[in-house]
Every structure is written in C-alpha cells, then in structure tokens.
C-alpha cells in the first residue's frame, strides 16, 4: 500500500517521463522530507538510524549500489543515494527509491506502531497519504 503511494509521490515530484537524474533528485528530496519529519519526534539520531537501516536493507540486493550501502552511516547518505540512482535506468532508480522509503516507513511502524507512522506520513505528504488505511488493515 505505501509502496504504491510512494511511487505516485515520486512520479509527481520527478515529473512525467522523468529521466534518472530527475528521479534521483526527487528521491533525495522525499528521503530528506521523511527524515525531517521524524527528527522532531525521535531526534536527529533516531531519524538517521532509521534511514541508515532502510538504505542498508534496500540496497544490499541491488547491484552497483554497494558504495552507497557502505556509506549509509556517513553524514550525507541521501546525497550519495542520489548520485548512485543517477547512474541507474529510470525504472530501476524508481524501484530503489520507493524501496528505501517504504522500508523506512515499515521500520518506523515496527518501532512506534502503524498509527503514529501513518500520522507522520500524512503530515509530511497530506495529499498523498490522506487515504492511507494501513493502520486499519494491519493486524
């Protein structure tokens, strides 16, 4: 469910028929927005930990993105993610970006619950997550 919403959000941010650099830039903006949304609630360190874990889990199976995975503990993981996605095909870049965001939201839900996670996503992207019913459908 959230993968679909993130895919739609990413497409809108990147623009119709976007190339890989546009998708990479949009992915970075979305990741940074997500981290910004988390930071006041769980602190910069908490947000960084969630994002780093998400990058680690998503990128470990993606050939060619190992340097990003190795650098996720660095200070600017999203800048590195952007650089790496720019080298991918547009479709592959989209899949990776959506995977990173969806995994981060799943991790967050694992720690603080679906309800709070959905609330945070709605605050970050009110139009896109207004109809997110994950909290009602998850058992």
């Amino acid at each position: 469910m959230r993968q679909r919403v993130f895919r739609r959000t990413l497409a809108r941010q990147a623009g119709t028929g976007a190339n890989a650099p546009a998708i990479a830039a949009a992915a970075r903006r979305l990741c940074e927005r997500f981290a910004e949304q988390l930071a006041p609630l769980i602190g910069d360190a908490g947000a960084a930990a969630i994002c780093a874990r998400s990058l680690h889990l998503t990128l470990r199976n993606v050939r060619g993105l190992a340097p990003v995975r190795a650098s996720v503990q660095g200070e600017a993981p999203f800048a590195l993610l952007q650089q790496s996605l720019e080298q991918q095909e547009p479709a592959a870049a989209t899949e990776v970006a959506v995977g990173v965001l969806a995994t981060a939201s799943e991790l967050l839900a694992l720690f603080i619950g679906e309800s709070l996670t959905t609330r945070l996503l709605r605050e970050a992207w009110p139009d896109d997550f207004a109809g997110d019913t994950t909290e009602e459908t998850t058992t």
Partner: protein
Amino acid sequence: MSDKVRIRRLPTGVPGLDAVLGGGVPEFSFNVIAGTPGAGKTTLVQQIMFALARADRPALFFTVLGEPPLKMLRYQQQFEFFDLAKVNTSVRFINLAKEALDGGLDAVLKRIIQEVEATSPAIVIVDSFRSVMQAVQRQTEGLEVQHFVQELGMRLTGWQATTFLVGEFQLVETENHPVFTVADGLVWLYQSLDRNSMVRKMQVMKMRGQAPIPGLHTFRVTDSGIQVFPRLIAGPPEPPPADGEGKKRRPKRLSVGVTGLDEMLGGGIPSGYSVLVAGPSGSGKTVLATQFIREGARRGEAGVIAVFEKRPSEYAHTSAVVLDQAVRDGQIGIIHTRPLDLSIDETLHELTDAIHRLKARRVVIDSLSGFELALAPTFREDFRESLYRLVAALTGMGLTVMMTAELEDSYTDLRFSPHGTAFLTDAIILQRYVELGGQFKRVMAVVKVRASAHSKDLRLFEVGADGMVVGERIGNYQGLLTGSPHVVSPGSRLTPRRPDARRPKS
C-alpha cells in the same frame, strides 16, 4: 467577596494523585518530578499530559538526552492512557538533543520558548531535565543553570503553561540545586526495597499554594498507568448522633445472625463498632464472620468481605455459611487482594471501592494474620499502626467492622490477638477449645463491648450445616480457660481470685 487570587487546580487523570497533591496540580505551576531510574517519572507525566492536553491548549513534550524518544514512544504506547489520536494534535513530542549538544542552555531555552510561543501549550514537559544540565556541564559560556531555570520558569508561567521538569535527581541535591528552589511543586518517586519486595512510593515535598497530604504514598504501575493510594490519616472519630434534645443517642445494634450471641453482646453489635473475633485454627471464626455478613444481607445491609487466605470463589461456598446467591445478587462483595506486596492504603482503597459500590454497612477482614502476610514486608513492621488507621477509617465511615484473628490455643498465655491489636477494637469475642468429659468442645465468650453491658458467660457452641449455634452457659465448671477445669457443685460459691491470678492481655 474575597479579592485574593484563586488558583485553579488541574485534575491530573492519575487516580489518587489529586488527593495527594491537595486537590490537583496548580494551574501555571512549575513542577519537578524527581526520582531514580525506573521510578515511574515519565509514565506519571505522560499520564498527566494525555489527561490534560486538548487541541486548543495542547501539551508539548520536550525530550532531551535521556531515554531515546524512539524507545520512549514505543514503550509508553503500551499504557492505556497513551492516546494515539492525540499525538501531533493535542500532544506534540519535540526532541531537543541537537540544541542541548550544540548550543547549550541558550539554544535549549530559545527553542522551548519558540515552540511555546508558537503553540500556546497548556502543559509543557521537559524529560529529562537532568540531561539538559549534564549536557551543558562542560560549557563555560552562556547561561548559568540558575539563570536558565529562573528564565524558563518565568517564561513558561508567563505563557500560561503548567510545567513539569522530569529528572533523575538524588535526594541530597534538594539542598543546593537551583531547580528545587525555583520549583513550585516537587514530587519525588521512590522504589523502596525490603528483602525481595519492592514497593513504589511517592512524596510531595512541596506544592506551593495548597496543602498536599504529607508522608509517603504507595502507588502501582499497571497497564492502565499509575494509581496512587493516598496515605490514610485517620481523623477524629465521629461523635454519636444526637437526638432532638441534644442527648447522645445510643447506636443502633446490628444482629450477628447467631442465635444467642446477640443476647451475649447485649443486643447485638453497636453500629460503627469494630469487633475482633479471636480463636484457634478451626474454631469457627470465619463461620461467625460470614454469618454476620449474611445476616446483614438478609436485613438489606450490604457487606464486604476482604479475604486474605482463600480465593473469593472458594470462600463463597466452602464456608459453612454459603454466600453464593448473595454475592450474585450484589448484596455481598468478596475482595481477594493481591498477596504479598500490598500496602494498607491500597487495601483500604479496594475496600472503600467495594463499600461505595455496594453501599455496604458491614465489613469483614478475614483474617488479620492473612492480611499481615499479604502486606509487603516494609509495611509489616508497623502493622499495628497501619491497622489502627484502617479500622479508624472504616468505622469513621459508619461501618461496622468484624476482624478475625488466629490465636495459638495456649493455656498459659491468654491474649486476644497476636498483633497486640485488641485494644484497637470496640468489642472482642473469644473462641476456645476445651476438653470436657473426654470430648473436644468449643466455647465462646464476649470479652468486651465498649460502653455496653454484655454477658460474662462462657457458652458452648457448635458449627453445623446451617452455621453456628450457641448453646448453654457452662455453669458447673471452673478454670475452663486454664485448660484444667474442675466441676463445681451446683450452689457452691466461686472461690475468690488469688492475688497472683493471670490477667488477660490484649
């Protein structure tokens, strides 16, 4: 009409806490919640926060460097009071770790004020305030701690916020830490260890503008959150009601439900009295107590039994006096409290809950020995004083209380309670075993009924399928309580008491 300012007191949403604080938290006050790790500080302030936060007057919860906020949110959600619908609407969590580490007190103060001015919160919490202090300890520039605390207190009060600073402080710090001087309220939470038992306690060390209940109050943390059991302070006993001419009326008498025993008591137990039923194991104390309660139910006076040795389901139908139906009808309530870690105040709380629910007029505590064992070790030491407070509170409510106490059947030491509590009671009924004509017999006597005439007889009694039946006075024996009675021929005069004869001890 008074022109003095009237301080509004906010209900905390923590059962029992408002009473301890003296009516609630004073609005716009600046409070410190202190205690050791695991004492329940964060749980307490969050329970208060969720109770008070509204969309138009939200609560701001500033986390700093203590418990990571990710974990705090994860664990605190387990409590029933944690209302997810309020998060980010009426309750906002804001992390100040970056400000504390990078900018020190100036940056922390600036951010707090910024957020407060933006949201006009009714409640502000800083958790942990101690970690703010620790984060800036090494800094030599910027605001001093005292200045920071005063500035924070003034700004938040000025912005009409009620504030709670949460911190892991040591008691010795109360002497010189500026936060304790500035604070209007100081609540200290403890984990009191005694042998293998831990009891949570709370003390309101100060609460400006009102009178909190002094002393240590026990509290529990359950899935519902914190529940405080205010330390009971017994007031003066209520004077007996007066009739129209101002004369004291004699209290109404309550029937015990045992034929013959009412007569021995001088017409039943005076209403509002406490009665001790003392006797050895198996002598029929529980039967008498349940008969007392059942008789009340029969007469439309509901009753509550606090059981400390059996479970209520067993108690209701294993006693010779079956109570099942009256329990189902709501005329009798049976309380079985958690054993081994109780406080007297918690027991009283459970009792009064049931008493109010059933509008009870009679109470039984069966037994004092079981009750003492059910208490946490730390409270057993002052059991007598605690029991005094309990009995005074119950009788002060106009209830008639019957307590059972197990006695070792000794013929060389005549006492009515192993707890030295007999003097606390208004009446004492004694049960004993005696050997008569080669048979074990049970006898009963009324030892005292305060301010009332009563029988001095020793009377045989039996417990049958229908309960207790009191028989005749044992008239032809002397020395029954010594264990070596002898027959006295009818008409002979009793020998006068020797000067060295034993006196009953209470």
